[in-house]
């Protein structure tokens, strides 16, 4: 299988890349890890006329924390960098749980987190994780730099809020207000398959009370689902069994799964509920151990 013909450019600077996209308009696509785009092009689901390969752009392969704890992930940071990251293991439990579950190890060597967000596949894991963490995407275009909250970044299945001449250069996870906990669970039929169901939970706790919560769902709707009501049910008090049950029920209610070869809608909804309880149960246990 081959993609249809396209013009290929591999710019050496971000300015040059933006210029190429500006001239290429709607027919241009940015190529980072290529682990979603190249298969789509081979299947002719995508047939861009211009490919702007950003792999030669310097200084985009980082992930680092600012002094205040804000985490920044560059556009060329690969999934495997995040999977091996001591920084994530130490400070970002939801992300550290998700990183080893993306696709398979070989795909993780090339694929990028920012690319996954831009691809906006309803079954993409990172979008849920970044949404649950209240993150955002930084875009650069001819008019400068703007920050797009994740909640508004995905505009539909495989659609994002970027203008045709903008490049997503960075994903940003805000600093935690208190102690971070949470996790990501994914049900997949085999390694590398898309999620039957994925659930991201991100909590911030001050003292015994949950000060912020985010819950987001993968693969159970037309796009990534933010379960805001479920998350709100956790905020303002300690993580009691009642609150956990209530959040799990609300998350299951927020899911809009469809029956398909991966399972029935009812089954998927049940898994959403189970995963919320399971992640929060582990969090609760960890908190008790710490106390």
């Amino acid at each position: 299988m081959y993609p249809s013909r396209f013009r290929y450019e591999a710019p050496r600077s971000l300015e040059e890349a933006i210029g190429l996209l500006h001239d290429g308009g709607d027919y241009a696509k940015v190529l980072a890890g290529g682990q979603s785009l190249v298969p789509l092009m081979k299947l002719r689901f995508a047939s861009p006329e211009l490919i702007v390969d950003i792999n030669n752009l310097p200084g985009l392969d980082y992930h680092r924390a600012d002094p205040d704890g804000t985490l920044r992930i560059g556009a060329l940071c690969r999934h495997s960098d995040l999977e091996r990251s001591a920084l994530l293991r130490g400070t970002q439990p939801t992300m550290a749980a998700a990183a080893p579950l993306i696709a398979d190890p070989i795909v993780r060597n090339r694929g990028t987190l920012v690319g996954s967000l831009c691809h906006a596949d309803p079954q993409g894991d990172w979008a849920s994780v970044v949404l649950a963490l209240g993150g955002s995407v930084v875009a650069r275009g001819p008019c400068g730099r703007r920050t797009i909250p994740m909640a508004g970044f995905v505009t539909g299945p495989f659609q994002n809020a970027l203008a045709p001449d903008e490049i997503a250069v960075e994903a940003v996870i805000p600093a935690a207000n208190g102690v971070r906990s949470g996790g990501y669970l994914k049900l997949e039929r085999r390694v590398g398959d898309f999620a039957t169901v994925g659930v991201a939970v991100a909590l911030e706790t001050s003292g015994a009370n949950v000060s912020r919560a985010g819950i987001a769902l993968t693969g159970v709707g037309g796009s990534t689902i933010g379960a805001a009501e479920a998350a709100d049910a956790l905020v303002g008090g300690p993580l009691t069994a009642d609150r956990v049950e209530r959040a799990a029920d609300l998350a299951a209610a927020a899911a809009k799964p469809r029956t398909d070869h991966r399972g029935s809608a009812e089954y998927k909804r049940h898994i959403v509920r189970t995963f919320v309880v399971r992640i929060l149960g582990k969090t609760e246990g960890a908190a008790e151990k710490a106390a």
Partner: protein
Amino acid sequence: MTILVNDDASASDVPVRRIRFTINGERKIAEVEPRLLLSHLIRRGLGLTGTHMGCDTTNCGACTVLVDGTAVKSCTMLAVQADGHEISTVEGLATASELHPLQEGFKDEHGLQCGFCTPGMMMAAKALLDANPDPTEEDVRWALSGNLCRCTGYQNIVKSVLWAAAKLRAQG
């Protein structure tokens, strides 16, 4: 060397790009059509047919090669992206007189039946052993989880890789 997707297309009609790369230690220059995949450059352009194409959809890992030492599915990378990089394929494992311990291991432990997935398995295993000379069984299963085998049930593949790891460690 000019490599197009359709051999019957007239070369003058198709824009090509010149790339320089190293394959199994040999430096090469090629002119490729941008839509040519790395797997096709390797198989058709260079005649190195040890790299197999199974699913062509980034699932099976039969086409796994190393790019600058990192395992990559070569059906999911453009050949033009190899510009300036070092590629290793299964043909680069053995020396003129000796099999690589991974190849010996697959032979000794019966790590293959039909053999189709084997080159990809060995290259993924090579990347693992380069990074981690003393892997556990779990490490091996993790490293090979992006490579599908429909014959063996993986048991003997895992044994083969552990065999190779032990031999490489013994060789120092």
